[in-house]
């Protein structure tokens, strides 16, 4: 144990003497949590709309007014020819074209019916989909208004109409920050846990001090514990800083207990530290470790359900998310922060994570050689 004390003392001295590590500990969570949640928002706004109005009637103007005042659309262009509008799309200035035919008003009044045409720029699939849907629902709304105006006394509606009302549970205002912040926190903890730790060990390989340690009586498990413990503490520290920022900047206070979050994080960090250790045994310099880390982080983030729903992934991709530790922590964070899940609810995830920790660490220890 005395040996471990000396190793830990040395490790903490080095960590807190390195200005770049201090920066990472405090700047990384601040920047990521203060900036990313604003950008990582699925809501589509500022859709550039190009209106082709052949009618120039009161009704057509009312419709355009309604669309532009919805807050989702920006009127990019109001012209009289479709080819002109298409040009706007081609130059990437417009996302949507709404064509109002001549006689729009006349048909509406005379035949009780009129048609509109909508052309969507589908290069950005999400924007196209949502933009089209928004526009459609605004037009429907408009339709209802017109009808309400014509039927003066709203006694019995001549047509049967089904309307669905919904209530959003756990995130009533559908606030994306509430959804993203816990996820981004997980990414932060993962980066510190696995990549900072692996870089640290590989650095010792690179400068040759690991060889010096290897000729001393320091045991393998001493050395590994000496590396794991500081980064485990560092990971929990980052999590605490992150949770504080989430509270101060976004007013996010976990519905569930902090104890549950920390319990899971403690086990989770063991798993990712094992991964970091494993990475360091397979690389011999910091460049290799860095590249491998980038690659893994990319896979981890995109296949974790942070940005996209896992349920909509193909079966094989869903299988990968199952062996991605990040998936579980993000899930747990969202469960606890939004829904207030307790230890019992996250039990299966906790067990899985214990499994991860066990497998990754044993693999790393077996592969870490003091002798060649």
């Amino acid at each position: 144990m005395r040996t471990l004390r000396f190793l830990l003392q040395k490790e903490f001295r080095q960590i807190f003497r390195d200005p770049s590590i201090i920066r990472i500990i405090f700047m990384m969570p601040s920047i990521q949590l203060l900036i990313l949640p604003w950008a990582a928002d699925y809501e589509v706004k500022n859709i550039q709309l190009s209106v082709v109005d052949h009618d120039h009637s009161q009704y057509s103007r009312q419709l355009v007014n309604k669309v532009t005042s919805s807050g989702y659309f920006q009127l990019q262009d109001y012209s009289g020819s479709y080819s002109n509008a298409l040009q706007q799309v081609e130059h990437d200035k417009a996302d949507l074209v709404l064509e109002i035919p001549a006689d729009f008003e006349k048909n509406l009044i005379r035949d009780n019916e009129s048609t509109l045409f909508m052309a969507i720029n589908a290069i950005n699939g999400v924007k196209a989909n949502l933009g089209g849907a928004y526009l459609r629902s605004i037009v429907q709304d408009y339709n209802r208004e017109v009808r309400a105006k014509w039927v003066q006394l709203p006694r019995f509606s001549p047509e049967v109409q089904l309307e669905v009302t919904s209530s959003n549970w756990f995130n009533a205002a559908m606030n994306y920050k509430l959804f993203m912040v816990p996820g981004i926190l997980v990414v932060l903890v993962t980066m510190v846990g696995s990549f900072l730790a692996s870089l640290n060990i590989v650095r010792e390989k690179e400068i040759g001090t690991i060889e010096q340690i290897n000729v001393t009586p320091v045991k393998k498990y001493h050395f590994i514990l000496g590396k794991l413990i500081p980064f485990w503490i560092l990971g929990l520290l980052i999590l605490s800083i992150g949770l504080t920022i989430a509270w101060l900047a976004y007013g996010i206070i976990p519905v569930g207990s902090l104890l549950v979050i920390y319990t899971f994080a403690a086990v989770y960090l063991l798993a990712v530290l094992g991964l970091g250790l494993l990475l360091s045994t397979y690389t011999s310099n910091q460049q290799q470790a860095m590249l491998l880390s980038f690659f893994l982080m990319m896979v981890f983030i995109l296949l974790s359900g942070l940005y996209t729903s896992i349920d909509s992934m193909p079966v094989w991709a869903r299988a990968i998310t199952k062996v991605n530790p990040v998936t579980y922590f993000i899930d747990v964070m969202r469960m606890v922060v939004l829904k207030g899940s307790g230890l019992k609810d996250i039990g299966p995830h906790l067990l899985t994570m214990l499994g991860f920790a066990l497998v990754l660490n044993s693999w790393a220890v077996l592969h870490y050689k003091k002798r060649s």
Partner: protein
Amino acid sequence: MTTNNIAIQAVELTKRFGDFTAVDAISFEVKKGEIFGFLGANGAGKTTAMRMLCGLSIPSSGKAAVAGFDVYKQTEQIKRSIGYMSQKFSLYEDLTVKENIRFYAGIYGKSDAFIKEKTAFLLKELRLEAEASKLVRSLPLGWKQKLAFSVAIFHEPEIVFLDEPTGGVDPVTRREFWNMIYQAAESGITIFVTTHYMDEAEYCNRVSIMVDGRIDALDTPAALKRKFEARSMDEVFLKLARKAKRSGD
């Protein structure tokens, strides 16, 4: 502790990497308190041989005992009995002089009282008292090397392995460094040293010269010069090294 006066004994010690035989059945003995020079061109297999003796590398075949302990089974005991200074500078540059000493002494299990007392003595000897709380990074190379050597023998090992300890160091510092080696040898520490400087070979009690993984010559510097009809160790080395088929790295 060993019972006889042999510090290191190697018999037919061999290391193969695939088809390549880095160290080819070398046999030698190093006596206690001796300064043993381990010479050879780049790529001759010196470092590999040394790594096997330090317990960093498992031999392919042959036998060896260091401080009376077997290199296959008793590596942990060997590590307790030796000091090692590698080619690469291996103190922590982001720790201070004092912290480095304390760390390495600590992981060898030395008591706080021992560390405190000996650190003070050592800093005085090295005239590093003023730099004790400075980062090792800020020291000149010569001082770093002297400090690294002092750290390698701080825990009072039986044997110390020095892998090209004076590479890149100026002649004056080199001289001082060898004075430290002599002092250590006088206190009973066996010195096993590799070097490329032939004037340093002259300082050794006995010298072995490795060529292509084998030991081609082993004797006192004087006897070697007589045998190869050479005026200096430089000539002896050139005569032997020219036979080498392997190219240096």
